[in-house]
């Protein structure tokens, strides 16, 4: 039996995520919302209700919603076959493909936009090529500043979310169930729709929720690729807060954005709970097999090619451009990175920027994974225990689950301003401290980790744990022997996103970065702010370094083995 002192310690540890959430999310957010909506202690209802009555704002809300919906559906459809291929087949270059697909996540939108324009812009490579091929006056593709380029960019950025979360879950599903259905006479199509798809639903909805929230709060893609004619709620919040300094309306919009996401999440967690199925999951690698038939070859390589074209092409364009000077191939841009040409105080040696970025990102990753795992453990146990306690009992964990997703859906501008006003004073005088960076990044990354691991947690059969316990395993052994092997891949996916989110993050970094701790994105923006071929070239070279660091880190994290688990 567990001593009471130990159980208090256990409770304290499980309280950590709650404390963290309250201190670094609720408190700053509450401060800024209060300043915006109740400056004199009275609620400014006029501002609060404006987003519901102003036709202009309503139009923005509508656009935000439908573009996020369409983007999510498109991303799901396009990434689904890829996830299948990654889950079921082993082939050369698999890690490479998975890494490639995740790279867009770290790139600044301005750089991605430049790559898109270089490819499919009016005088882009593809357009020029098509123009010559079809003997036209100008390139046939006119996507810039249209909804199409927004959707394309959303797929580009979020493809890997579906790919990774879905394939991590899929790998644990034994193929035997689908095979059994087929053996019983179901056509492959029927077996897919009636067996495989329902089994995958928890992971699909989990990934879809993340993608939806990302697109719902999309900012850079909208203003930079979509242009000034498009606006999401997030864009409007920025406009109100920064350009017009209308804090009440910015706060009101932020609040509605949060409420809307909360309702959505709540409905989602309800359906998740109702699915309530546990899968006889297996953590072995038996599910993966080499490519054999021509049809399988076609499927696997078709998907690889699709990923390379969709995601690789713009990245390749960037890399190529970083090595191409005005007079042919050159290393000039890379060499210049190491020279402080004009004795600038803000010169960042690339090595230092890389080191800063990696340290902060690892800190954020460890923090996010630890907190996310703790929270997921508590939630899934609570759910199981509450399942017998009727509807009310199940309500609390479900609501908590929805609540913990909110940092991802909260306007970055709003939260940033919240940190500014709340963390500048004792007792949390962290505004000037470097430690705030991994913390801020972890706030956004925890929901990610939770979405990655919760479907796995829910899928573990209690009987498995009970059996282990009966055989004499104590709590930690049960975790280590039962939960961990099944969750390993999901945790890895969560860890990788936590790392990536931190590595590419710019908003909080610029707001808090002191000259002593410049990160890679900070260095990139420093170059992009000035005219001149050398500045642009160096921005690209630095972006390529950022991708490189990210790719190496992925490979290292993926190779990171715990115990003797064999390979991935």
């Amino acid at each position: 039996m567990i001593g009471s002192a130990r159980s208090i310690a256990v409770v304290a540890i499980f309280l950590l995520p709650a404390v963290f959430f309250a201190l670094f999310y609720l408190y700053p957010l509450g401060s800024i919302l209060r300043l915006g909506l109740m400056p004199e202690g009275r609620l400014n209802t006029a501002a609060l209700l404006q987003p519901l009555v102003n036709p202009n704002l309503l139009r923005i809300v509508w656009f935000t919603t439908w573009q996020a919906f369409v983007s999510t559906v498109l991303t799901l459809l396009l990434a689904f076959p890829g996830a299948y291929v990654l889950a079921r087949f082993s082939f050369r270059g698999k890690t490479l493909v998975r890494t490639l697909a995740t790279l867009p996540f770290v790139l600044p939108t301005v750089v991605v936009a430049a790559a898109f324009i270089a490819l499919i812009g009016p005088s882009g490579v593809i357009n020029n090529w098509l123009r010559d091929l079809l003997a036209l006056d100008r390139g046939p593709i006119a996507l810039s500043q249209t909804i199409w380029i927004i959707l394309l960019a959303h797929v580009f950025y979020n493809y890997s979310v579906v790919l990774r979360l879905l394939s991590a879950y899929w790998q644990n599903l034994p193929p035997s169930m689908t095979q059994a259905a087929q053996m019983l006479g179901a056509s492959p199509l029927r077996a897919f729709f009636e067996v495989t798809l329902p089994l995958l639903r928890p992971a699909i909805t989990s990934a879809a929720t993340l993608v939806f929230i990302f697109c719902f709060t999309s900012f850079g893609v909208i203003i930079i690729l979509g242009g000034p004619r498009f606006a999401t709620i997030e864009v409007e919040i920025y406009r109100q807060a920064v350009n017009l300094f209308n804090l009440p309306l910015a706060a009101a919009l932020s609040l509605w954005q949060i409420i809307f996401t909360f309702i959505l999440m709540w409905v989602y967690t309800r359906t998740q709970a109702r699915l309530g199925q546990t899968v006889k999951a297996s953590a072995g690698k038996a599910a993966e097999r080499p490519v054999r038939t021509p049809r399988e070859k076609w499927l696997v390589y078709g998907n690889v090619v699709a990923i390379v074209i969709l995601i690789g092409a713009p990245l390749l364009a960037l890399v190529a451009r970083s090595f191409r000077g005005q007079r042919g191939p050159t290393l000039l841009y890379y060499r210049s990175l190491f020279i402080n040409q004009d004795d600038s105080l803000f010169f960042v040696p690339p090595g230092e920027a890389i080191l800063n970025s990696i340290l902060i990102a690892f800190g954020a990753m460890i923090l996010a994974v630890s907190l996310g795992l703790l929270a997921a453990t508590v939630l899934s146990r609570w759910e199981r225990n509450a399942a017998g306690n009727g509807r009310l009992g199940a309500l609390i964990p479900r609501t908590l689950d929805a609540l913990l997703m909110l940092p991802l859906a909260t306007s970055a501008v709003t939260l940033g301003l919240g940190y500014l006003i709340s963390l500048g004073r004792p007792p949390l005088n962290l505004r000037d401290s470097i430690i705030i960076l991994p913390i801020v990044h972890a706030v956004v990354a925890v929901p990610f980790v939770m979405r990655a691991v919760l479907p796995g947690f829910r899928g573990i059969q209690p009987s498995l744990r009970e059996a282990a316990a009966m055989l004499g395993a104590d709590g930690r052994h049960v975790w280590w022997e039962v939960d961990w092997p099944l969750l390993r891949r999901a945790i890895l996916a969560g860890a990788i996103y936590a790392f990536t989110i931190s590595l590419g993050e710019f908003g909080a970094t610029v707001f808090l970065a002191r000259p002593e701790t410049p990160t890679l994105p900070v260095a990139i923006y420093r170059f992009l702010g000035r005219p001149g071929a050398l500045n642009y070239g160096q921005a690209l070279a630095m972006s390529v370094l950022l991708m490189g660091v990210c790719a190496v880190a992925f490979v290292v994290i993926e190779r990171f083995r715990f115990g003797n688990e064999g390979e991935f």
Partner: protein
Amino acid sequence: MKHVKVWILVLLLGVLGSACGSGDQTADTPAVVRLMTHDSFDVSAELIASFEAETGLDVEIFKAGDGGEMLNKAILAGDAPLADVLFGVDNTFLSRALENDLFLPYESPVLLEIRDGLELDPEYRVSPVDYGDICLNYDVAWFEEAQLPPPDSLEDLADPMYKGLTVVENAATSTPGLGFLLATVERFGEDGYLDYWRQLVANDVLIVDGWEQAYYSYFTAASEGDRPIVVSYASSPVAEVFYAEEPPASAPTAAVLTDGTCFRQVEFAGILRGTKVEKEARLLVDFILDQQFQEDIPLKMFVYPANETAVLPELFQKYGHAADKPVQMDPARITANREAWIQAWTDVALR
């Protein structure tokens, strides 16, 4: 399980560390004077080092986003200011800063050397530190190849001859965009500027969110784009030469400097109310206004020094003249009308 323990330890340490982090300054460390500024700020490392050596102060500089973001953050920080001195609030935002009572008055002795016409605040709450001209830039080689005369007035942009050639920034979100809009308001009057913009839209002007996209995604001289005319700065051609891969024989871009086509942007610095080191902050302001710092400005930030005794670098004398008669607008008038003008402009140009 070991890993779990290590994680929890790291976590606890992290939280503890963060809670007690950023401890108080002990008495014997040198006094720190903090400067907050916008993303475009730059300065020679040597210059700051010499100031630190001379005064025994430590200078901490932090960038708080673009001009608008920086100002809002300074206002929101209220009585716990983010810094002691703010550098870079410009004439389009000045009134917002003054209305929020952000600065302590300080009449620096160096102000005597500041050039006339840079809108000195009569109460000395801010001091002009530099100025720049927001102007049309064009791709010299493109116009030579197309055998087309480069534009030399705002009216030219509406000429069918220049159809589909121009990219400008969103006036609601970008400083050059707003400056250009203000230039058109001044040139065509409050009754006429919207008509002018209708003509520009009919002439297929491209409006993008910010300077980075305009310049690095669409401007032919700097990207794979197809627009040879862009709204940038009078000094951008200097940067094109200074940051060229090899020293070019002539500048690849040029600015249109004819009367009334450029908008003059003036930047100011001031001491933030609530500072605990007002005396030291004054030293920093003096230093910023002083000749040495002012001569460092042009090749660092590609704007012109406010101090008349500062000598312009050779490159500027060759490629980077400021406009003779730029549009200069009273900050109070800008503040009074900014939102209305931008809203009307948005309805015409973006809907």
